[in-house]
């Protein structure tokens, strides 16, 4: 039995017993872990607010045979505050957390790149730097890339023929040339592919010039590409609120998958 320390983003919390929670964390050094936070649902718990989703924390854990126990938590960045203040940010951020959890298939498998991508995306979201839907799509595309599923939005994903090409195929990994194009490929608008390429490479000036139609089509393709690679449906993706103002009737239609 020993103590260890790590940096972590809180991905998810679940109630445990009367007053505890199980906290799912994406750590810098150990990948995804689950640990118990005792007494955090009781008033006066100093740990409570720090182990909420979106928080970036410096955390100390006590290794046990079953779930490790959280003994100390210091806040590094309280991203939750900036994210929860806006419903669009909150739903986009939740989809990022669920994606990060899903892309780390096994526990305790280090995934430093994903951790850094997530921290960067949450920081941008909390600061309201760019539209929340675009921050989400950029995160989804890049996290798929570091997981070994980098999509191509210009050259042919199969033969490398320089693009841009008209056709887009999920199964082939993105843009495909006329020779490689499988039946049933999509034909997204040229600006949509420019947008997705810009989001993947972090070219924000270009991404921000793309219009609403490209954003809508781009988010649909990104979601479809993500679902293609993760087995079960992501629950939070359908609830992402991409409008500035919505009524309860409209929120379910945020993203065609």
């Amino acid at each position, binding site marked *: 039995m020993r103590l260890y320390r790590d940096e972590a983003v809180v991905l*998810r919390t679940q*109630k445990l*017993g*009367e*007053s505890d929670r199980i906290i799912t964390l994406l750590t810098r050094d150990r990948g995804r872990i689950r640990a118990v936070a005792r007494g*955090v*649902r*009781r*008033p*006066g*718990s100093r*740990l*409570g*607010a*720090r*182990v*909420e*989703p*979106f928080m970036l924390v410096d955390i100390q854990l006590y290794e046990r045979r079953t779930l490790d126990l959280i003994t100390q938590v210091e806040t590094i960045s309280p991203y*939750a505050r900036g994210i*929860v*203040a*806006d*419903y669009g940010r*909150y*739903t986009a951020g*939740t*989809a990022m*957390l*669920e994606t990060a959890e899903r892309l780390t298939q096994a526990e305790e498998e280090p995934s430093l790149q994903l951790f850094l991508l997530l921290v960067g995306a949450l920081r941008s979201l909390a600061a309201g730097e760019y539209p929340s839907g675009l921050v989400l799509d950029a995160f989804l595309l890049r996290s798929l890339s570091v997981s070994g599923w980098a999509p191509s939005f210009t050259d042919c994903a199969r033969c490398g023929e320089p693009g841009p090409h008209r056709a887009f195929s999920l199964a082939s990994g993105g843009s495909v040339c006329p020779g490689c194009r499988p039946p049933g490929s999509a034909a997204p608008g040229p600006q949509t592919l420019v947008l997705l390429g810009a989001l993947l490479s972090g070219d924000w000036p270009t991404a921000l010039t793309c219009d609403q139609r490209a954003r809508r089509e781009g988010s649909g393709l990104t979601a479809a590409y993500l679902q293609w690679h993760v087995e079960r449906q992501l*629950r*939070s993706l*359908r*609830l*992402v609120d991409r409008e500035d*103002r919505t*009524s*309860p*009737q409209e*929120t*379910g239609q945020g993203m065609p998958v």
Partner: protein
Amino acid sequence: MFEGVVQDLIDELGRLPGIGPKSAQRIAFHLVQSDPVDVQRLITAMQEVTRKVRFCEVCGNVSEEERCRICRDPRRDPSILCVVEEPKDVVAIEKTREFRGRYHVLGGAISPIEGIGPDDLRIKELVGRLSSDEVTEVIIATDPNLEGEATATYLARWLKPMGVRITRLASGLPVGGDLEYADELTLGRAFEGRRLLDV
């Protein structure tokens, strides 16, 4: 593992909130050794509750009639609505004796990661209640944790154009906690110091 019926009982008890495998075992063996009359009383109480209790058609609180006790009470101020997540939050707030308006129970909080969106809560019903001119203030008393805050943000954005005063319980409530665990004093103070929500 125990024999058939005892294990079945342990499994059923273990599905209840806050009861782990150890507690389930302890309760099961307590029941096995109890006087059958006592056990029968428990069974009857559980059956009665599933038979009689339903949800108030106005506010969504648990009720034995179409309308709950609070919605039927003419002394309760119909111009102020307090929005909570669960019926148990109504109980917690009633204990403070600080609030004389009426309630609206959402049936949970928005939690995209659990697949719970605005359409899964009683938000349309809330909007319906606000379309009459009777209500002038809505107090949002969702849990002081992330999902409760996000639900408050959503409600405020959606209710604001309806021209009602929207307030949120004051801080002092433990962040990350459950409303039901807040003591009466803290919860009462939170009512007095509720603030206008500006979204």
